[in-house]
Every structure is written in C-alpha cells, then in structure tokens.
C-alpha cells in the first residue's frame, strides 16, 4: 500500500480478495488437475513410508520429491492462480523456487540429510506433522462447508506442502541444514495463518500450530542415541 504510515493499516486493509474467491482458487485448481491428486497422495504416502524406515537413499528421495513439489506449486498454484488476485505473491514465488533448490542442495550434496531411525519425541512430532499434512489436512475443507472439491492436497497446494516440509526438517540432521530448510515453510505458514485469519477461516490456526509443532520438535532436547 503506498502512502500512510504502515502501522495505521489493519490486516483487513491489506486483504485484497474475498473468502469466496480464495475458496474458488482451490476448487478450480483441483478441477484443472484431477486426477493428479491421486498421484500426489500416492507419492506422499510413499514418502511417509520411507520416513518411517529412513535410509540415506530414501531420505534423499523424499527431499527430491518435496523439491519438485515446491517448484510445481510455485508455478501451478502461486503463479497461475494466486498471483492474479494478489500482487504480493509475486514476491513469494522466488522463495518457493529457493526452497526447491535448498531441498535439492541440502538433501543431496555432501552427505545430504539424515533422519534418526529410533523413536523420540522429536521424531514422533515430525512424522505426525507429515502424516497430518498428507492425510488429514485435505479433509479440513469439509469443516468449511467447501466440500472435498476445495481440498488442499499435498504436492499441489502450498499449506500441506509447507507443513510436510516442516515435518521433514523438524527431524532431520545435521541441524544447520534442517534450520535452513525450516525457514521458508515457517514464513509461508505464518503468512497463511494471517491470510486465513483475516478471511475469517476457522482453520486459520492450523498452519500456526504446524509451526509451533515443528519448532517444538526441533528444539526438543535430543534423546541420547542408544549405544
């Protein structure tokens, strides 16, 4: 917004579209992509299985899948659908591209990422987050009365993708790489929380909760490794 002190604006002054228009974004997106949802869910399910029995190759694969998804969502959702109704999204798209690159680089170069094989609070929270993003988040569309035609599916829309990536990064080692991977998904989830809250969406707290869970998992004192 040009002119006027920034603190004199309320979030609702910055909101450029109505709840209905936002909901329709997902409906049209789903219509246009069907049946890609099935593929996305299948690949997401496979990633979850890999995360449950992690090995170097599997972890790399999950990072690559997520990288492709960040690039795809940047193009197919943010660029094609969201940016036309919100000029601010043009500034977010490069960040999604950067996240894709980070996942490729940090997930594969120089040893890549490691995931603990033993159970711990951190791993439980992280996997719970990934599983939620994959299986439950799409169903929350039902709570809004939108129906599944407006479901937000992992790999195709930003919120569940960011949440799933938070899940991966919350559990991964080395810590420095994991923190780098957390940054952009955290920013997105906070933006999504603000947007949904301003739209009056009852699910606004979900992306915020995802951030809290991911940070809690990340900061949870590390269990001594067995042996």
């Amino acid at each position, binding site marked *: *917004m040009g002119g*006027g002190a920034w603190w*004199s604006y309320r979030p609702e*002054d910055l909101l*450029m*579209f109505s709840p*209905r228009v936002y909901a329709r974004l997902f409906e*049209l997106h789903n219509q246009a992509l069907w049946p890609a949802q099935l593929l996305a869910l299948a690949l997401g399910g496979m990633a979850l299985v890999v995360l449950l029995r992690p090995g170097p190759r599997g972890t790399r694969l999950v990072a690559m899948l997520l990288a492709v998804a960040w690039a795809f969502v940047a193009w197919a959702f943010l660029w094609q659908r969201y940016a*036309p*109704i919100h000029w601010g999204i043009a500034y977010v798209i490069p960040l999604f591209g950067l996240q894709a690159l980070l996942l490729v680089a940090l997930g594969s170069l120089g040893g890549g990422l490691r995931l603990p094989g033993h159970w711990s609070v951190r791993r439980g929270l992280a996997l719970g987050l990934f599983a939620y993003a994959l299986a439950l988040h799409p169903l929350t569309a039902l709570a809004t009365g939108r129906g599944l035609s407006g479901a937000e599916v992992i790999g195709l829309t930003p919120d569940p993708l960011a949440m799933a990536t938070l899940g991966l990064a919350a559990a991964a080692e080395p810590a420095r790489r994991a923190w780098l991977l957390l940054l952009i998904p955290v920013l997105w989830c906070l933006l999504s929380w603000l947007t949904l809250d301003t739209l009056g969406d009852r699910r606004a707290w979900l992306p915020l909760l995802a951030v809290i869970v991911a940070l809690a998992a990340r900061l949870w004192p590390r269990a001594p490794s067995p042996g």
Partner: protein
Amino acid sequence: MAQPLPPLSRRRLLRGLLAAAAVTALPSPGGLARAAEPLTRELPGTGEALPRVGLGSWITFNVGDDPVLREECTAVMAAFFAAGGRLIDSSPMYGSSQATIGHALERLEAVDRVYAADKVWTSSPAEGPAQIEASRQAWGVPRFDLLQVHNLLGWEGHLETLQAMKAAGEVRHLGITTSHGRRHEEVERIMRRVPLDCVQLTYNIVDREAESRLLPLARERGIGVIANRPFQRKRLIRRLAGKPLPPWAAEINTTTWAQFILKFIISHPAITCAIPATTRVDHVRENLAAAREPLPDDAMRRRMADHVRGL
C-alpha cells in the same frame, strides 16, 4: 444443417441481460423511465455531469479469471449501467479488478458508456506511463476519463506525467486519492498548489474529518470530490444492521441503511459522487437508487449524523 452458435449470440445474450436489467430497474408502473436516471453533479469546471453514485472495485472485482465469478461481476456492471451508473473506479493495486472490468465492458459493449476512473500506483514516476498503459489495456478503453495518483504515492512526478497526458488529450481529468483520513494535510497542500480536477477521499456518515478543511477547500477551488469507503468496507452496515431506520428516514425516501448513508454522503455540496463497491446486483440497484430526490437538506443531514452517533 445445425450451425455452431456464432460468438455474437453470447454477446446478444448479454445485451439482452443489460436490457432486462434496465427494465427491472425501472420504477413501478406509472413511473417514467427518466425517473430511474440518477441525479448527476458536474465535475467542477469540466462540463462532465456524473451520476452521484458510482462503483468501486476493491476486492469485489478481484476474481482472477474465474469464469463464474467474472460473469457475476459482469451482471453487477450490467445492472449498474442499466440503472444509469457511469463512473467505475479501479487501480493497478486491485489485483485482477481492472481485467474483470475490461472483460465486462467488452461483453456489455459499454466502453462508450463508462466513465473510466483509474489510478497510477508506483513509487517510481518513471514507471508511471508503462503502468498506465497496462491498465488501459486491461480496461480495453481508448483512454481514461480520470487518472488519480493512488494514495499520493510518488505524486509529484506522476502529476507532471498526468498533466502532460491531459494536455496531449490522453486523459481527460486528473486527481489524487487518499483514504481512511490519512495525510489530509498533504492533500490540502497539493490541492492548493496543483490544478486538480478531482480528489478522492474517505467520507461517510461517521468518517467526517474531510468536512473541516478539505471539502470546503474543494468547493473554493472548484475541485470534484469522490467519496470512497462509503460503508467503511461494510463495517458500518454491519454495525447498523438489525437497528431500525428512524421513521423520519421516509422523508428522504430511504428504505435501507445503505441508502441512508449514501444520501448523507452525496448531499454534501462538495461531493461529486460516492463509489460503493459490491458483488451483488440487488445492492448495486439499491445504491444507484439512493441518487434520487429527495436528498436531505442541512438540518436533515445533522439529524442523520446525530442519530447514527447515538446508536
């Protein structure tokens, strides 16, 4: 042999829609078609008589390329024109609103009918001309009737551009905008210094800061005033919803709070028009119908404002 429907038939359909909207916007039998024409006021010194209720497009017309929502916006614009409306206000800041308006103008063949009011919104005056040209293409109009510097952003450079464009006949009128009561002192300085056709600011029955200096100054200097946020983006309507209109509202022929507020705004002698935004055909009709006699006189205006303050 069955022929595919020519594209024109869709267009005819929409023209039909426009005509139908015109018919249903007519007053009850016995009333004349002319009675449906809204009151107008001249944009001072320009000879341009504008209907005293126009149409905003912030949020309401930002629907992307969603075909269903675009048609709904087209129906709102059809009803707007059918009820005698002309001024539509937009900005490159409003996402896809300009393109939605352009789509509807083309479908309704209403490019000649509209008074196209847009804005320039960039901090860089050098980028102004390219942005204005992109906006013009989105609207699909040969030129804008009014170009305003949005929220005073980069106003000095942009006003130079707009003055040059006006001299070259590339825009008819020019102005500046603000809202929410922001930066009135700066607006005042510009009004005193630069020849403007129009200022746009927030004015309604509760946001009345402009009454003290800017509105009298606009009259003194012969500058038109467009009132934005007439309903405080619906907050005002929500606040009043459920409360009955005072019985004396009948004296100014209002049946709803929206009309009560609009009549208050447009009856101020400095206000050229108010520009409520809406997604609804019934609301656009209701709003245009507020631009009819009788309008409140000074005493009635005071009574209206006091009444709303007391609620």
